[in-house]
């Protein structure tokens, strides 16, 4: 296809700010994305050691390693924080800021935007001090009364608070745009981004409250005790919807850019909006499904959260349909045919595209596993076993991470004007990541069903209680090696690209804006769904209704206990 999309036609006509090389958002987005990948690099280097632990191989006594990390659990804390919290948030703050601004053709207040970036990075550096000195080896869930250094909580809170400023700026620019264009329907990329940011702002309130009201004063010694159950409940208020904050930015690419990368069109613009509106509404009031086995929480409230959790599966099932249809459209336009024969006609040589298709395939299994976890009955079998890391490495660890890796393969050249270094190696790395994670998932899910605990240095246990798990242990070990190779290959292409010479202004690497088969012109649904603020308000009310009856009795009957700082 060589014809320009309406977007691109507009792009070529519009003001220099939002569509040319000098666009100041480019540098900012580049900083966010690259900082994120540096965190991922460090985090991922620890992963294979953990996979080997789950193969009963203990490398943590090696002197070289001993000099860097004191224990398995310090390494695990770093792995969880850097990968799941730092990498994701920085990538998203670059991606889901740049794209809607460019989509609306506006330049936000750049001083404010850079200030946010600097403060967010400062947050990471502050938290890094206790993490690296083994003063906060409390894992990325930091359940009190395990008590890390106050710097850890302060740094983490600052970092998360900054993501709200990024989201706030996007929502603010959208409001401004709406006022200037009262009759128009929001362009799709912006719609998806704004809905996701609104969801995240509501979702993050739990963690922000936990940090500001409970953790920071307590770790500073201003109060003597903490209620671990309240803290845990606030944590999961944020802790589940955070997974949609990781996933939806990948969906933005799957819906908004992959159709064009495949040479086709998005199936339906209005239905895409519907999926995001549903996510805004029901992503947050679901956190109790992480607490089915907690004492002193009403069973009825647990059941309501379970129902809502099942409902969040609906927009994801819609996504599976839509995205597959748009890929099929692309493949048929490229000459493919047959019931499944068209699959061969997708652009498999394109590493960016391939990475994201593989990420989707991984999410089919990840999503199915998620439905298992959401069911209170089955959760009691798999809870806190190796099944759980098995599950989230094919969701956030692949559906999200491999999508972000794929996006980076065009986005970084677009932002920097550098040519992708070693595209063949990039293609190899995304396949290796996919297979590595698939093997990992088999090993870990299987170990989980045999009762092997997660978050445990099983390779250093005094007694052998997992004699039945040798086969899946070997499988997990192999996956660790495959993933090490995959990561090294990927980061070679990434850093190779960044270190190469700038050859253009980056505009030759086009943003793959996609057209839709069913557009939002004349769509009643699209018009109704413009009411994002009303949906947002409804989401707040729903969270109040589903968390009020849980938190109010907890707060009235709070039971403070002392902290422990020297257990690791």
């Amino acid at each position: 296809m060589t014809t320009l999309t309406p977007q691109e036609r507009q792009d070529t006509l519009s003001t220099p700010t939002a569509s040319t090389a000098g666009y100041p958002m480019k540098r900012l987005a580049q900083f966010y994305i690259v900082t994120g990948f540096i965190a991922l690099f460090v985090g991922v280097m620890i992963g294979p050691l953990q996979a080997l632990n789950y193969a009963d191989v203990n490398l943590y006594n090696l002197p070289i390693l001993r000099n860097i990390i004191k224990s398995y659990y310090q390494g695990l804390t770093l792995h969880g924080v850097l990968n799941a919290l730092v990498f994701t948030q920085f990538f998203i703050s670059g991606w889901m800021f740049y794209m809607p601004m460019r989509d609306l053709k506006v330049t936000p207040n750049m001083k404010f935007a850079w200030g946010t970036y600097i403060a967010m990075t400062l947050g990471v550096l502050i938290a890094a001090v206790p993490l690296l000195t083994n003063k906060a080896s409390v894992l990325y869930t930091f359940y009190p009364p395990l008590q890390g250094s106050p710097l850890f909580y302060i740094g983490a809170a600052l970092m998360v608070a900054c993501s709200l400023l990024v989201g706030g700026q996007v929502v603010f620019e959208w409001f401004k745009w709406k006022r200037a264009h009262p009759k128009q329907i929001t362009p799709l990329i912006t719609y998806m981004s704004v809905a996701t940011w609104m969801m995240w702002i509501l979702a993050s309130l739990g963690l922000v409250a936990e940090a500001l009201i409970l953790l920071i004063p307590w770790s500073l010694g201003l109060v003597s005790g903490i209620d671990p159950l309240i803290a845990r409940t606030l944590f999961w208020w944020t802790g589940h919807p955070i997974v949609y904050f990781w996933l939806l930015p990948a969906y933005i690419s799957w819906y908004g850019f992959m159709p064009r990368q495949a040479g086709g069109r998005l199936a339906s613009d209005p239905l895409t909006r519907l999926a995001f509106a549903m996510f805004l509404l029901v992503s947050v009031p679901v956190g109790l499904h992480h607490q089915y086995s907690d004492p002193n929480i009403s069973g009825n409230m647990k059941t309501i959260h379970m129902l809502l959790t099942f409902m969040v599966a609906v927009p994801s099932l819609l996504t599976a349909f839509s995205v597959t249809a748009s890929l099929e459209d692309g493949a048929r336009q490229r000459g493919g045919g047959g019931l499944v024969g068209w699959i061969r006609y997708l652009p498999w040589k394109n590493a960016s595209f391939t990475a994201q298709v593989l990420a989707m395939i991984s999410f089919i299994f990840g999503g199915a596993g998620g439905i298992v976890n959401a069911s209170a009955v089955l959760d009691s079998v798999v809870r806190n076993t190796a099944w759980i890391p098995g599950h989230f490495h094919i969701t956030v660890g692949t559906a999200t991470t491999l999508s972000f890796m794929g996006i980076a393969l065009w986005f970084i050249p677009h932002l920097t004007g550098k040519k992708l270094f070693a595209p063949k190696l990039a293609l190899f790395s995304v396949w290796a990541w996919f297979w590595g994670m698939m093997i990992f998932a088999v090993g870990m899910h299987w170990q989980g069903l045999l009762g092997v605990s997660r978050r445990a240095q099983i390779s250093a246990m005094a007694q052998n209680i997992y004699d039945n798990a040798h086969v899946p242990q070997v499988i997990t070990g192999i996956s660790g090696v495959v993933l090490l190779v995959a990561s090294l290959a990927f980061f070679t292409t990434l850093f190779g690209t960044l270190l190469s010479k700038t050859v253009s202004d980056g505009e030759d690497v086009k943003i793959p804006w996609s057209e839709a088969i069913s557009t939002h012109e004349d769509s009643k649904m699209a018009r109704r769904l413009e009411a994002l603020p009303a949906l947002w308000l409804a989401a707040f009310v729903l969270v109040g209704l589903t968390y009020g009856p849980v938190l109010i009795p907890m707060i009235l009957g709070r039971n403070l206990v002392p902290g422990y700082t020297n257990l690791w």
Partner: protein
Amino acid sequence: MLDHDKLQNAENIWLGVAVVMCVLLFTGVVASFLSGTFPLVSGGHASGIASTRVDPKNLAVTPFAKPGLRQEGTENELFMVAKVFSFDPAFVRVPAGVSINMHITSADVMHGFYIQGSNINLQIVPGQVTTLRYTFKYPGTYNVICNEYCGIGHHNMVTRFVVTPPTK
């Protein structure tokens, strides 16, 4: 090329299928609560006993002062304390075929309580008592594993339940 109407139709059907599927899943789980395979509703798994809170620094004034299995009236009550990095009592002998009320709390940080190969898998929170009723069906030795990170010795926090054949 795919066309608009056909696609929309198929997508609507798919949406219907998705909703029905989720409703069925939910119904299945609720049926399991009601039938008692997973009695979330009636004082079983994970329901806890509301208002059962204790001071983890002063368990001496609670039934947790002397952990272990005992008979109170017609009920078998088992009290256990999790603390870094062991369970008290370190070893529990229970008869099969008898309903047991287990009460577990923590003397320090969060712990887990997972009976390997069963669906007893609980969060143990300091200050709160996790309670459930359970009847062991089959005699044998079961590992009980702390599956919530509690510190450097977490992976060695394991105990055993020996389920003896029914006495009659």
